[in-house]
């Protein structure tokens, strides 16, 4: 099916010397990742060290970090194109896991998100599903590279994410479903879909949103309503927003200092070590700390996009875009939520929020980026299996005008 890719890919495998691969590793990406993960451990400790078991959370996070890093190292050794060829299986397994959550999942706070692994704890398939969707959608997009002349050409991709989104919605996990949406838009845009088609899909989404409204659980509707009008303020939701704003705002320019966040304030803020961890960062490290965090994230993202531009094939390029879209969306929604410009949707802060499944997913996403980056062709020429250049020029209306 992918005749264009395979003949070129196979001879390369294993022929690039390891030394070259290591030289190709993006050390800036690695160091920003390490900085974020390090800050995450410190902040998880800061927000939980006053609990009855001060080290439980940090220990769990470190454990997940170690396991996640080992697996990430393993991922680096495999050529990422091997992932592309197993995309179909991954897609099916992903659906099965998401469906399993609905059947045997553990409930918490009104939603079923976890599958228990007995003594090993529990994991959240919807986190890993984010990465799997990036990989399978990249494969799908590189398998049918367009040109996408009309919205009908986008429908297969829409179908691709519709099923997982539906399953996530049933949990219900509105935030994660939105992440899939962001991944989808980012990858299709980069993949060459026409702007007006994407816009039409967006409009269609708005049109069917009244239907989705009925699918939402009561507490999710409340959260959305509270975001629109905090004065409605039902139990907890609006409360969380205000408390979080107080925490962030009271940090002022320099912050109250690490571990000096007012304990009371932290107790006011719900989920302060998971989804609302940024409110602790804002309080303890201030505006300066927040800005540094944003800069580090922006560096990470720009390295990710650079890898997308140098990737040797369409699959790698689009996978990189998907990962970047995912992280950027997470960051914006999560930080936005703590300062009251985004609704509370339960999306963690990448690399930093407490939560094993989310941390490992982000580590593996980074590993995939590094993998794509270190296997790029030194000599940059078009290796993608796409159609000849001219065809696309004729399709992309607005782009041609810019030429």
């Amino acid at each position, binding site marked *: 099916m992918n005749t264009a890719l395979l003949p070129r890919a196979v001879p390369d495998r294993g022929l690039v010397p390891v030394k070259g691969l290591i030289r190709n590793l993006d050390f800036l990406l690695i160091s920003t990742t390490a900085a974020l993960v390090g800050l995450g451990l410190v902040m998880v400790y800061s927000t939980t060290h006053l609990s009855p078991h001060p080290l439980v959370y940090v220990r769990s996070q470190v454990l997940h970090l170690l396991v996640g890093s080992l697996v990430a190292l393993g991922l680096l050794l495999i050529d990422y194109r091997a992932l592309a060829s197993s995309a179909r299986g991954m897609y099916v397994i992903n659906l099965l896991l998401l469906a399993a959550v609905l059947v045997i999942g553990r409930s918490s706070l009104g939603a079923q998100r976890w599958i228990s692994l007995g003594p090993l704890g529990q994991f959240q398939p919807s986190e890993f599903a984010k990465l799997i969707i990036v990989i399978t959608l990249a494969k799908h997009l590189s398998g049918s590279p367009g040109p996408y002349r009309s919205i009908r050409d986008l429908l297969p991709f829409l179908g691709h994410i519709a099923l997982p989104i539906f399953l996530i919605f049933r949990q219900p996990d509105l935030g994660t479903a939105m992440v899939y949406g962001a991944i989808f838009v980012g990858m299709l845009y980069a993949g060459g879909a026409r702007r007006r088609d994407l816009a039409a899909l967006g409009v269609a989404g708005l049109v069917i949103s009244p239907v989705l409204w009925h699918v939402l659980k009561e507490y999710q509707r409340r959260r959305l309503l509270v975001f629109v009008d905090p004065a409605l303020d039902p*139990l907890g939701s609006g409360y969380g927003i205000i408390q979080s704003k*107080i925490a962030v705002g*009271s940090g002022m*320019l320099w912050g109250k200092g690490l571990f000096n966040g007012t304990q009371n*304030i932290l107790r006011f803020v719900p989920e302060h070590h998971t989804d609302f961890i940024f409110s602790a960062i804002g309080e303890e490290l201030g*505006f300066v700390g927040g800005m540094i965090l*944003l800069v580090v994230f922006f560096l990470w993202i720009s390295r990710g996009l650079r890898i997308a*531009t140098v990737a040797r094939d369409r699959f790698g390029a689009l996978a990189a875009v998907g990962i970047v*879209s995912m992280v950027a969306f997470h960051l914006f929604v999560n930080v936005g939520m703590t300062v009251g410009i985004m609704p509370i949707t339960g999306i963690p802060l990448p690399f930093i929020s407490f939560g094993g499944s989310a941390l490992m997913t982000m580590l593996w996403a980074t590993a995939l980026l590094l993998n794509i980056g270190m296997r790029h062709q030194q000599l940059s020429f078009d290796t993608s299996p796409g159609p000849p250049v001219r065809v*696309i020029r004729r399709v992309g209306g607005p782009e041609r005008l810019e030429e």
Partner: protein
Amino acid sequence: MDRGLFERRLTVLLAVIAAAFVVLAIRLWQVQIVQGEYFLRLSEENRLRVTSVAAPRGLIEDRRGRPVVLNRPAFTVSVLPMEMRHPEQVIPEVVRTLGLDPAEAAARIAAGRDRPFQPVRLRRDVPKEIVAAIEENRMDLPGVMVEVEPVREYPLGPLGVHLLGYLGEISDRDLDALRAQGYEAGDLIGKDGVERIYDRQLRGRNGQIQAEVDAQGRPLRVLATTPAEPGNTVRLGLDLDLQRVAEEALGTRVGALVAMDPRDGSIVALVSHPAFDPNLFATSITAANWTQLVQDPAQPLLDRAIQGGYPMGSVFKVVTATAALELGIVGADSRFYCPGYYNLGGRIFHDHEAHGNLNFLEGIAQSCNVVFWTVARPVGPERLGEFARMYGLGQKTGIDLVQESTGIIPDPAWKIRTIREPWYAGDTLNTAVGQGFTLATPLQVARMLAAVANGGTVVTPHVVTEVRSPKGRVLLRIAPPAGGQVRIRPQTLSVLRAGLAAVVTHGTAASIQIPGLAVAGKTGTAENPHGKPHAWFAGYAPIDSPQLVVVALVENVGFGAEFAAPIVQRVFEAAFGLPLQPLPPTSPASAPAGPDRGGPGAGAQAPPGSPHP
């Protein structure tokens, strides 16, 4: 793919992301630099107060829409731990003013330490004078709050209390399980009856007020409010008038009464005496009152109608007769001779009188034990048990009330399993007339008789018929599917019905004839180890199209026809709008022995052979 296009689009993507970052940065600048001082002040002085606005609990109304349970506004005094400046002075002061037990109050406040921003309720329904005293000293009592909260009111007092239930503060264990559903510490939750089973319908949703307060805790500015949403209205099948008549008819006697519509299983009246006043619980009960209720030997908390297991006495003959007729062992005209005793291999079982020559129908009407002993042997204990279970005996009815008793329907396998003794022929005789090991609740008996009345459907009794939103929209109609079907031939049913009708026309309950209403029923006088026999009467009316089944049980008084039947008669009279007959004078029951709650030992002590009118 066009590399140029791809790279241009990545540039756009980067620009979009950068713009989003700039938005975040601007917002952080706004919150942390521009408004930073304001938020810092809020955070340092804990000047944000969130108070919960208690939702009025849903109303409970009777079959005709008359209120049975209401709410009234009352004052609640709470403390807010984070605002207490000098707890060592303030707490004893408040506790003294409220007249609370210092240890209990301290324990409550300690339990709230984890959530210092949540008020800890010290006392609900505080009298006006005490509230005035607290308000006067407001300046000296920082962290003490007075709020208006609805309090549950049971205007009818003990009337129907076992069915309605009562409230109590949520226990720690329940709280762990229910926190996700919005329950909070200190919430009142239904602890029994309808209040408990339908708690989620009744509780509504608490509202909330977030306000900025000054150093004295006075609100300066309301930041946000959510109105409380009142709970849903629950409509019962209960008829208040009939319930009142039934309560009066049972009077001071210890016992129970169930009135049920045999067509759909809705409970029209449910009485258990002695009762208690649920208003004691409306604001969470005091320890002293609770101890008194629990230690009362008459067990007022026990709902005898559904939780009390009693020997059925001759009421069980409905089952024995069904089995004998259905298995073809007897017909309506089968002849018997009753010499006043029955000889079981040399062991003599005495009947209460010598009925002489009589047919099976008359055997039912006169409740002749010899007739039933005679047919019991060919039926055998296993099939007797099967028919009993077909009528729903020995199993929960599935009523929407808590801690229903299962009862006991014994057979040889059961006896070996529980008592480790073989089944004797004498056990069969005892079982056939409702003595021995058999135990049933009045509700189970009502369901059994309803099956006879409605043609064989073992209905599922239910107390609630409908749940409506506060605005009157019907949210839930409750009509549980039947629990089973009694599969018997029409001839069996008609003989059975004729026999039960004869009980009232000229049989053991001939004393309760009601002019203008044809009643059928069965008396029972259940020997028990606690004293005088329990009196039973189970009846339905009208005979042609039964609309009501009424079962009365009176503990340790004597004959069913004498003590239970008049009570049932009175309920029928009231239900069908007939003039009420005067009740026989009742004397308070002697030391109430309490029902047998299903312990096999209790039933086993009953003497074999039971006299019975």
